[in-house]
């Protein structure tokens, strides 16, 4: 579904991504782990075309590096940014509506707005208040739903569980699995090792702008050295 080959990215002069290789298949949950600041978010942004990517990014076999963000989105990649970006001045519902692709009707895709509300009753309760006043967690849910409602075939989710209460975290974990079940591929950028190990099919670990480990959760569990060097203190 998505093939990233030797991807580089820069902020001004600083060379953030130094050749990242990632591959994701249909309905697969791939976790992208690593310390803060190693460039996981940047990877997502580069794929999305928000930071100019250098290298090759193939989606469904089509080269998308250099395309505009909205073109990429309309090809079927969804992106849940890490710092939420809730649109102020719009209600929760309107935020969701903007998730719909141009011309797309609600309910046309795999998800309808109602599904979202059923999944997170908080949102339903707050559907018509200005979204910027939502609680941190609620905002997190909203961002995720906003992307999903656009019916992507691949979602890149940047730290979805951040600021969620433990049982919300559970809920999200279930949601992610549900997403996979519906045949959507997922790139999960996550801090909480536990969840990653729990739900991911494969795991990439990043360090210094490169992928330093690739394998299944089991393999990672067995590789203390990697965990020591690239994840824990």
């Amino acid at each position, binding site marked *: 579904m998505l093939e990233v080959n030797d991807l580089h990215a820069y902020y001004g002069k600083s060379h953030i991504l130094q050749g990242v290789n990632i591959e994701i298949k249909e309905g697969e949950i791939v976790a992208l782990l*690593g310390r803060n600041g190693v460039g996981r978010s940047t990877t997502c942004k580069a794929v999305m075309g928000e930071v100019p990517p250098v290298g090759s990014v193939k989606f469904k076999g089509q080269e998308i590096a250099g395309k505009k963000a909205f073109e990429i989105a309309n090809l079927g990649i969804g992106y849940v940014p890490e*710092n939420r970006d809730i649109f102020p001045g719009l209600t929760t519902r309107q935020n969701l509506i903007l998730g719909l692709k141009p011309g797309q009707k609600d309910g046309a895709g795999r998800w309808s707005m109602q599904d979202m509300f059923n999944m997170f009753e908080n949102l339903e309760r707050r559907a018509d208040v200005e979204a910027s*006043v939502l*609680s*941190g967690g609620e*905002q997190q849910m909203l961002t995720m739903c906003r992307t999903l409602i656009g019916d992507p075939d691949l979602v890149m989710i940047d730290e979805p569980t951040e600021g969620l209460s*433990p049982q919300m*975290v559970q809920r999200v974990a279930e949601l992610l699995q549900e997403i996979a079940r519906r045949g959507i591929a997922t790139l999960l950028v996550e801090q909480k090792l*536990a969840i990653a190990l729990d739900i991911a099919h494969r795991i990439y670990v990043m360090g210094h702008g490169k992928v330093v480990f690739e394998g299944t959760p089991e393999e990672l569990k067995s590789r203390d050295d990697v965990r020591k060097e690239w994840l824990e*203190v």
Partner: protein
Amino acid sequence: MTVPALQLEGLRKSFGKTEIIRGVDLSIGRSERHAIIGPNGAGKSTLFNLITGRFPQTSGKVRLHGHDLAGMAPFEINRRGLSRSFQITNIFSNMTVFENVRCSLLWSQGYKYSFWNMVSRSRELTEGAMEILEQINLTSRAQLPAGVLSYAEQRALEIGITIAGGADVIMLDEPTAGMSHSETDYIVELIRKVTENKTLIMVEHDMGVVFGLADYISVLVYGEIIATGRPEEVRANPKVQEAYLGAALEAEH
């Protein structure tokens, strides 16, 4: 125990029709580390906002060291020795990291609105700021605009700014959100260090952090405190179990 550092009496807040905080009574003693946990949307941040004067409360009282804070503006409250961080990062993104910290030192070091002394001339300021930067180890980024820091770095700065003022009541809203384990552990250490014999009130979803730091825990659910007590009591409390912790705890540890 003498006058509590912070005391809430029948605090209520409603936005329009919906009542978010529904009568909170809470008393937090001096130099006590108090964690507030609860499901999303329970009203934790709102509670913070009420205490720090960001929102006016609908009814009830907030007492800081016994003084009623009713109707005070945030800056007045801050001057009385209460400082907070924000859940959604809130820094001076166009100023350098160093400036960020130095500005947060100004008032506490008694510079007030003075336009007769030069900040760059004052040794205390610069060194104070540098110390803080060391603590949150951003020294290497001192001269960068705060805006370009990575998310976690910004969180660290957020905390730096909060503690810099040297307030004796410190409120942190999800300080470790979005941090990897290494950072988390580091920040926890940092918090412990800087809040030595100060009063700490924090909101946190990371149970590791909560149970690692807090002397007391209050559980806020839909605007009401359903339990307060020592960590082990709270953890044992069945109500808390189903309302909040759920099965997650095991996953965490």
